[in-house]
């Protein structure tokens, strides 16, 4: 193959492409850069751009003291971990049944699972609120997570992966006397690890950022996640200045933002993998 001479005829991107791509990138990062500037400078410099302006962490300290952010961080972390654990466990079991068992009603059951891909719990707020009220769970972390524990998306993704695992591995383990659950745990789960990572990243970022359902189902500091806490903090007109609000905003996004910058490749690949069905 004459790969070595191919580049000569391929269209090369022009310098114009590079300039335009960079312009858009700068424009795209501008609102965030502006927020950074405001959060790390005294409020007098919030709208004045002076390269000699002193840097400060005062705004973060003020935000941290002005609202129970420590509690909100704890709530969100617990919530995200709880949802992810439940999703991984339930969808692994269900996906295994769909991938490796033949049983009556399988197609109907699978269709029932797929319904959740089009009618998401995010829309069924009114009824789910009433269900939680009946169960006496309103204003608990458990209630925020419960509607998301069974994830059609995770079941679908894992089923595809499990179906791609050669049956011979399965049979070899069976010959050695392993039980079904042992096979699932020792053969299937380890081989599907990249899919688990991908789903975990997508799930964690979705639930870290989720807002409307937590807003409705919580009404106290003890159960409020970060997003709702941030909204309460920034909508109360109590003379909180912009620098503090921006600091709080960056603070709540920091774990995901830092995680993304450190593990950019995994993030991008996870989102890709999760999207391509």
């Amino acid at each position, binding site marked *: 193959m004459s790969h070595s001479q*191919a580049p000569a*005829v*391929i*269209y090369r*991107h022009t310098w114009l*492409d*590079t300039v335009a791509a*960079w312009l858009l990138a700068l424009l*795209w990062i*501008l*609102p*965030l850069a*502006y*927020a950074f500037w405001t959060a790390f400078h005294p409020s007098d410099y919030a*709208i004045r751009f002076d390269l000699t302006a002193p840097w400060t962490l005062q705004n973060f300290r003020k935000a941290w003291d002005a609202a129970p952010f420590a509690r909100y961080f704890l709530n969100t972390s617990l919530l995200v971990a709880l949802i992810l654990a439940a999703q991984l466990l339930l969808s692994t*079991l*269900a996906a295994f049944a*769909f991938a490796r*068992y033949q049983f*009556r009603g399988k197609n109907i059951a699978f269709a*029932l*699972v797929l*319904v*959740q*891909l089009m*009618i*998401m*719990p*995010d*829309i*069924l*707020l*009114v*009824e789910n*609120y009433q*269900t939680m009220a009946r169960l006496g769970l309103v204003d608990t972390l458990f209630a925020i997570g419960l509607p998301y524990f*069974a994830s059609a998306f995770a079941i679908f993704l894992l089923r595809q992966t499990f179906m791609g695992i050669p049956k011979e591995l399965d049979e070899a383990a069976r010959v050695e006397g392993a039980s*079904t659950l042992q096979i699932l745990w020792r053969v299937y789960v380890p081989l599907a690890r990249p899919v688990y990572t991908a789903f975990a990243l997508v799930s964690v*970022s979705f639930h870290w*950022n989720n*807002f409307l359902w937590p807003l409705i189902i919580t009404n106290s500091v003890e159960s409020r996640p*970060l*997003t709702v806490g*941030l*909204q309460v903090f*920034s909508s109360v007109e109590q003379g909180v200045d912009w620098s503090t*609000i*921006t600091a709080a*905003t960056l603070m*709540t*996004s920091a774990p*995901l933002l830092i995680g*993304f910058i450190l593990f*950019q490749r995994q*993030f*991008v690949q996870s*989102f*890709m993998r999760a*999207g*391509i069905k």
Partner: protein
Amino acid sequence: MSASSSSIAGSGQRSIHAWLLLLPALVLLVAFTHWPAVATLIDSFYSTPKGARAAVWVGAENYQAMAEDPVFWQAVRNNLWFAAATIPASIGLALLMAVWVNERIAGRTFVRMAYFTPTVLPMIAVANIWLFFYTPQYGLLEQVTGALGLPSHNWLGSPSTALGAITLVAVWKEAGFFMIFYLAALQTLNPSLKEAAAIEGASRWYFFRRVQWPLLMPTTVFVLVNAVINAFRLVDHVFILTRGGPDNATTLLLYHLYEVGFKFWDTAYAAAITVVLVVVLSSVALFQFFVLDKKVHYQ
């Protein structure tokens, strides 16, 4: 004979195993997706229970109220406008970004990061950042327009620009997300296609239009369906930026549902609005399943 009966017994046992494995997930799905969807439909034909007065059958009264509710129609118009603006803008930008990032331009890693970063931020945080950006007099936007000698304008405060302002925020948040899928698809395209087209002397635009774009069609369908769903589901930023105002200029359907259901506590009417949203979202999914997927050319 004994062999076949034991295999039937075995398959029966395997069936039970399978259902046991499915049970926890199915119970939760039924409890929080199927049942509420059905219950919403039923509740939409009853009145809202108030105090000691239980809900009574009212037929289509809630739907009649909906038809006569000017805010509902405004929300429908706003949502259609919002969808019609965000969907093509975010998909078009995503495609452009993906094509650029797929080339070996200088500083590609930074450029890709700049495009993708808004996607990982919570929408509430995004809205806070843009609220400051749009603030009259202080905001960056005002400073730029002010420097250009343009008159001061309250972008979120005037009905004529508020919807456009929240649309821009949604595009900013979503374009980078869709870019990822285009980028993944572009990377799987065979590089010899590009060589062949170049040897044939095809222009770059021609190559994009006749080769890349058709091959990206499955990705476009996937992204399109997600964009439509998001256009009816993404309302977090409305809570921070405008709260549906000024004068309902930025009330989207799901926001209206929230106000009716959880501010006015008119749960019956809220159920009727939910039914409308469910119908919209499921027709998008069914349209994708029965029409688009059959027409799209897969590699």
